[in-house]
């Protein structure tokens, strides 16, 4: 048991010091194709990954509030936004109608078995990550309160300009 914790402590320490990449995980697109999350991130600019679900109200608020910022960030910095739904297979049929109704222009991905959510150690949705053009996770945020979208937009702009970001 002691060995185990020692191993974790060492791993934690060493991994914690360097930028994280995304673990390779298979997701589905809205038209049923299987894709690896690693192939979905932008290499031109920052990528925002927002985890959400059709039954999660703060998630929908966040994605709606961020929609206007996302358009500007894409134009200015080539930022890409991936909205990853953790809805299970039954609810995932509600994803496309909801996205249309909300008028979101994000790339929608389905994490039906919540594999990516687990691989990234996410407790609850909403959960937001920002990656730089090298694919390194440079910023993470859990939960949503009104106003967080302003902060997120600032973070994305900073990442695009190559500035360091703090939580």
């Amino acid at each position, binding site marked *: *048991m002691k060995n185990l914790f020692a191993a974790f402590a060492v791993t934690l320490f060493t991994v914690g010091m360097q930028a994280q990449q995304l673990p390779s995980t298979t997701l589905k697109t809205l038209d049923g194709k299987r894709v690896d999350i690693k192939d979905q991130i932008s290499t031109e600019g920052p990528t925002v990954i927002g985890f959400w679900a059709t039954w999660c109200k703060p998630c929908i608020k966040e994605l709606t509030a961020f929609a206007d910022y996302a358009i500007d960030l894409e134009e200015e910095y080539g930022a890409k936004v991936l909205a990853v739904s953790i809805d299970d297979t039954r609810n995932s049929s509600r994803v496309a109608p909801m996205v249309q*109704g909300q008028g979101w222009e994000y790339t929608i991905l389905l994490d039906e078995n919540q594999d990516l959510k687990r691989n990234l150690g996410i407790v609850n949705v909403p959960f937001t990550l920002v990656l730089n053009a090298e694919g390194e996770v440079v910023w*993470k945020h859990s939960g949503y309160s009104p106003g967080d979208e302003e902060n997120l937009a600032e973070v994305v702009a900073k990442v695009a300009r190559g500035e360091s970001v703090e939580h």
Partner: protein
Amino acid sequence: MNRLFRRLLTLLLLPGAAIAQDSYGGQLHGNFQLDGQWYLRDEGIDPTGEFYPDERFLGQGYANFVYTDGDFSGGLRYENYQNVMLGFPEGYRGEGITYRYLQFKQDNLDVTVGSFYEQFGSGMVFRSYEERGLGYDNAMDGVRVKANLAKGVYLKGVLGRQRFYFEKSPGLLRGVDAEINLSERWHVLDSLGLRWTIGASYMSKYQRANDPFLVLPENVAAGGVRSQLMKGPWVLNTEFAYKANDPSADNGYIYKDGNGFIANLSYSKNGLGVIAGMKRIDNMSFRSDRNGSTIDMLVNYLSPTTEVHTYALPALYQYATQINGEEGIQLEANYRFKRKSKLGGKYGMLVSINYSAVQSIDKDYVATSNDTLRTLQGYYSDPMERGTIPYFHDLNFKISKKVNSSFKYNLTYLNLHYNRSVLEDGLGDEPMLSNPENIKTMDADVIVLETLFKVKSKHYLRNEFQLLSTQDDRGSMAMALIEYSIAPHWFFSVQDIYNYGNPDPDQKLHYPLASVVYTEGTSRFQLSYGRQQRGIFCVGGVCRVVPPSNGVSFSLTTSF
């Protein structure tokens, strides 16, 4: 086994840590959550003290670690309940490593040993998953193999036992699932603009039986077929499942077989999203212990086809799937009035309507005098006949509009019908059919107005006013909530629910609750003080009953 596994994990993690020092190394992710509540004696909500815990303070926590390095991953979870908090299943007692696994992928093969979560299709035949907020966890412990045999052909096989708190289910599960993405195989479909995926699954459980009276089937099989067909904005999903006879505590130990059918059709284009669905379930309780109850050891998942409400008052009356039998429909439409249109205004306006209704299925019971047939069959059901007992209906309208850059509102109206005999007391159809006058129901109209003001950059004020008007159950309630958030760190909230319509004058109570939340990146600390009503707490359509409580609670979550 446990010891060997831990050693193996240690060995595998150590070189992983060494590699991590290189720039291309592995990744460690994880999370931690700790919850606690100091309970206060409150004679208003709990006159006899039946819900007041002896411990005064209850707390629980867990941590997950997942390490991935290329095609390899491994992880574990430690859980601790000292003692389990009110409202969670009492089976969670003590502490230990409840989840650990190793996984590798190679040449289109993906192998997991240890704990895993998996599902076949929509889950009508098999779904193992967790919902930590509910205390729901039916993780498998065993072996899983996934293979991509040919282009567009995906196979999965599982073998193992399910988690039962700190133990394992008595039954074994073995299952296979095949999914074929026809469009990936035949490009002619693509040229027709069609995308078509079909699938089939089979799950068998084995549980030893030595009942002195009944000859129980030790092997029970279930299977399902499914299809997803897409063309342009249209998507049609259908799934059918069948389960062999499986006498259980849920169905009263009858030998009738079970079946389930779901179908939904959706259309999404140009700001319009519409979905229409129907389903029918007949005797589809499937557990890896035939004597299991509540949320224990469920092999399959039968999600409700009703909308999940998150506003506090309508959330008091949530629907939960009736696994012994139900049929229902759901219609939902979302439409966005465009920016700069007459109704849309400067920023557009979203209008939604949702209708769902669930009722009993047709059941023709075998007379009690016919003992043998009664035990064998229980009842006959005609899928073409409608059931007569309404379980639930919900009709709601929503408008969301951003008026200007600093003001938004959401207005919601709901009409609810809730069968308390079924959803709270768990009464079967037979006693309700014989005594329809004893059925307890709840009919309510609910209005919710939610407003959001931007005070200044990163400062927001959010309000909710809710009114639930009813003559039934606990009577009418009103609620007001004020939240002030300062992004990205602070969040303050105060709310009060006033049960002004309670038929018992002593229960016309206020339920005040105040919270402070501090967020720093992926860490969140919440402190709350106040009263909580008894109610049903649901996540993603699965519910648990929560007793009333009063006290100071905190919650710390972080992930890395």
